[in-house]
């Protein structure tokens, strides 16, 4: 299962939202022009850490961005995602969709990222991930 799907499955399991309704994956996702949304995008991360025995771990990163006509609603949605992914402590040694994740850690605090194309306030945070390849 692709990386974003693994993250989305965790968010959905924790009641943050539902795929295609409030949670959207990738930069080409068609996001409704009204209401709340949480968009996930892969942002490259770092090179994989390899071993001599070919048991590499991948180090992707992702951006989570929430938007809504109300800044407070957008922030609450993003905060739910932040909490689902471990909050300030991150998640360590967990399994998401049968894939071993060594760590999911936030790179920064929740950040105001201005208005989206529909004029809704957006908030964002980014995560660093160390995981088994999937």
């Amino acid at each position, binding site marked *: 299962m692709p990386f974003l799907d693994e993250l989305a499955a965790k968010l959905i399991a924790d009641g943050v939202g539902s795929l295609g309704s409030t949670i959207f994956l990738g930069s080409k996702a068609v996001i409704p022009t009204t209401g709340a949304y949480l968009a996930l995008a892969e942002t490259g991360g770092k090179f994989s850490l390899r*071993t001599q025995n070919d048991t590499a771990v991948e180090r992707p990163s992702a951006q989570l961005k929430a938007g809504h006509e109300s800044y407070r609603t957008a922030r609450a949605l993003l905060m739910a995602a932040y909490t689902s992914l471990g909050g300030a402590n991150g998640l360590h040694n967990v399994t998401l969709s049968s894939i071993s994740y060594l760590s999911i850690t936030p790179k920064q605090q929740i950040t105001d990222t201005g208005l989206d194309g529909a004029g809704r306030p957006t908030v964002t945070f980014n995560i660093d991930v160390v995981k088994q390849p999937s």
Partner: protein
Amino acid sequence: MTLAISAHGTIIARALAATPTVFTDIAELEDITLPELMRNVFDATTQDKDIDNVVLGVLRRGEIGIAMNLLPTNATHDHLTGLQQAIISNTVDGYRFTMPQSLVWTLSGQINKITMKAPVDGKLSMNVAIRASGKMLINGIVIG
């Protein structure tokens, strides 16, 4: 075009003293430092010489360094049958280093240091130092 080759794929296997022909690959190896080969230098310069003369001593090997992801319950790492057991019991075991293009060093050695790290943000890791002792083989040729 260079003839250099990547070091990726270098594998170390360990044979317990009790079963010296049974080698098991050590899991999740990272950087490996193979034993340095050296000889001590003894000055043999005499008064009647205008240039130095030296004699080199016995072939000696430096410390072997192995870094790896620490897998606490892995049989090749742990305190029951793995590298941690080797230093606890001070056993002399066989170690086989297989490098790309089939260069193989085989030697006996003991573990003289293990360092484990648990960073707040990072992987569990283990560094193992081995001292070789006695004859060794390089691609089947006896050295020493």
